[in-house]
């Protein structure tokens, strides 16, 4: 069963088959990037708009290269979200882009739910390239592809995700996808960045790095954002790194053959030591390479269907009883 939804706004609720289908497709695209002529005609005549309301070098470049290798026309829009209340609303921007008949809009935005908002106002496909603290599905898919390449089947693996889970869209997307594929997920961080509610989503919670990574097959480090320092979520970056910086010493507690992932950009010496980031178990550069393949797969799956073929319904309508208190 391949992915048949119109949009990719998140990985929550996807089946193992849907996720595996995208990963299989991505794996088959990897070879294209190794050729001398890195171009396939798959999306010729299709238009991909990259609508980025946040700075991003890696993700935007990755989407653009993916689209270009499949021969799609790409447009990059770097918009400012600082003018809330002034300027054009996100819904209006979406409607205007839609009027130019793109096939895919790739959107990154600082507000959670922004990708759904765009999806509600357009009939083309929408790919969420990161919305606030909600989801970043293509990042998690490239992480999964990397894990699969190195460790084979994801099912049964113990994966530790370490850092600022509260604000991490990468952490959430990975949590949902890893659980769907049958991995055991440990979330590791200080209680201020790892609220108890994550347990209800199916994860094991750890507040001690050593306990969290002990015996883990995969360690995924999340970037700690420097601006969180002022919000009293932890006293200082120095103290944070004393407790949660992944060092060679901690890595030795993990299972033999452990691999270390990081979505980048890394803060050397804060959440990950330079020795670990550049060490033999680090697969950070594989992640970047796989990002292009995963985005090619996603664009291909969503754009290859012509606009007219796409199912009319955007997302399954929410249950009418959702949020209605019980009698």
């Amino acid at each position, binding site marked *: 069963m391949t992915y048949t939804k119109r949009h990719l706004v998140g990985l*929550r609720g996807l089946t193992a088959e849907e996720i595996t289908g995208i990963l299989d497709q991505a794996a088959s695209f990897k070879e294209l990037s190794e050729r001398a002529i890195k171009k396939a005609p798959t999306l010729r005549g299709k238009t991909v708009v990259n609508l980025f309301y946040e700075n991003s070098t890696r993700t935007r470049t990755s989407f653009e290269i993916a689209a270009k290798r499949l021969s799609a026309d790409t447009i990059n829009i770097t918009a400012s979200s600082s003018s*809330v*209340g002034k300027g054009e*609303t*996100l*819904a209006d921007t979406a409607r205007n882009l839609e009027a130019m008949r793109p096939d895919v809009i790739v959107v990154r*935005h600082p*507000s*959670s*739910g*922004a990708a*759904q*908002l765009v999806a509600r106002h357009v009939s083309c496909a929408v790919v969420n390239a990161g*919305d*606030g*603290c*909600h*989801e970043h599905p293509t990042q998690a898919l490239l992480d999964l592809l990397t894990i699969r390449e190195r460790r084979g089947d994801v099912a049964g693996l113990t994966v530790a995700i370490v850092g600022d889970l*509260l*604000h991490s*869209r990468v952490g*959430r997307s990975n949590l949902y996808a890893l659980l769907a594929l049958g991995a055991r997920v440990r979330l590791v961080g200080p209680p201020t960045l790892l*609220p108890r*509610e*994550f347990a*209800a*989503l199916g994860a094991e919670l750890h507040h001690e790095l050593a306990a969290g990574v002990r015996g883990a097959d995969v360690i995924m480090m999340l970037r700690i954002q420097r601006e969180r320092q002022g919000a009293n979520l932890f006293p200082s970056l120095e103290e944070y790194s004393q407790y949660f910086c992944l060092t060679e010493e901690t890595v030795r507690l993990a299972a033999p053959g452990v691999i270390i992932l990081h979505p980048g950009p890394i803060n050397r010496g804060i959440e990950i030591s330079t020795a670990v980031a550049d060490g033999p178990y680090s697969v950070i550069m594989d992640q970047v390479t796989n990002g292009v393949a995963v985005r090619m797969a996603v664009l291909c799956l969503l754009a290859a269907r012509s606009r007219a073929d796409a199912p009319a319904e955007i*997302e399954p309508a*929410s249950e*009418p009883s*959702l*949020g*209605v*208190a*019980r*009698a």
Partner: protein
Amino acid sequence: MSDERVIVSGGTIVDPASGPPRPGDLVIDGERIAGIAPPGSVPAEGRVIDATGLLVLPGLVDMHVHLREPGHEYKETIATGTAAAVAGGITSVACMANTNPVNDSGAVTRFILEQAARAGAARVYPVGALSVGLEGARLAEFGEMRRAGIVAVSDDGRPVMDAGLMRRALEYARMFDLLVIAHEEDCGLAAGGVMNEGVTAVRLGLRGIPAAAEEVMVARDIALAELTGGRLHIAHISTRGAVELVRAAKARGVAVSAEATPHHLLLTEEAVGEYDTNAKMAPPLRTQADVDAVRAGLADGTIEALATDHAPHHRDEKEVEFEHAANGIVGLETSLALGLKLVAEGVLDLSTLVDRMSTGPARLLGVPGGTLRPGEAADVTLLDPKRTWVVDPTAFRSKSRNTPYAGWELTGKVVTVLVGGRTVYTDVTAQPVLRVAS
């Protein structure tokens, strides 16, 4: 006109202040209620309203409404807001001070009352600002506003973070017997939150507001009410802990009261679903355990009033990223039918519902109405308890459409509404019920 006799005949009188529901003919002379007679015992003189099969209620009193005028007329005006009120069976509204200019002066209070008189629908009782400009720094002139007609003071929408200011407000308000209405939310704990703190917020990546943000403020203000002897009223109570605090304070004899909104009685945080901005309000929708506690509090009298917190917003203010969307929903045209849903679910009985929607809030505000006893203002709501209808926001009389109840099938429809003996609303979709006796 003013001394015309009106007989509302054949209905069931539901007047909690004068006993259990019973069949009876309501007799109105001019602007006041003359009495309730046994069915068929009054000669059919003057105007007769056939209320066969209908419930006859004291007009509802909604003590928490935002009418938006002056200043935000694109959301609502006093005319459209009071038209929406009477369509919902509400004959009196207390309107909050967060207008532009803020109602922190006798001049603004008088303007609101003049506009209300011009609109000629529901009675309007302005709530004055607690602090100048709602800025939480200096007491507004309670006396001047009281003389102009306010019934309570509140910085609603802006929690009073300065405990010293709240203390003085409760103390000074005693001189005018003014209710002090508190929007309880500790801004430090709520810091940037946009929905209830819990598993739904974690899933959606939205910043949460813990129940403790409300509870620490309720606890603080109860202590201040005890200190000062002022009359504290907790607006839109939403958490189990807050209900427990109010219940315990009342048991100690503290002058504290509370209101609950239909949404905190019927919806949980899960209604946010996939970023539905019509489920964004302050305080936020909470959990099932909180809903259960608020329901229990409404039933046992810990919470004396059901109020809508009617908060009209333009579509443009809701059709944005969830974190940037305006807080609140409209409520005037759905609250009675939603209240009846609670009756149908066995949360409380019909008389208790009418008490919480009419008698209780009228008593708290010290305004006319709330009962059908002889001599009272003839504010009457006739309700067909069996009619089902589907909530269609495009049919609202309110200027705004922000409701999470669109498409809900509700039972119980307002048929006719009298304010001061004058018919201010008749449901055009109902069978004609007015006839003039020969």
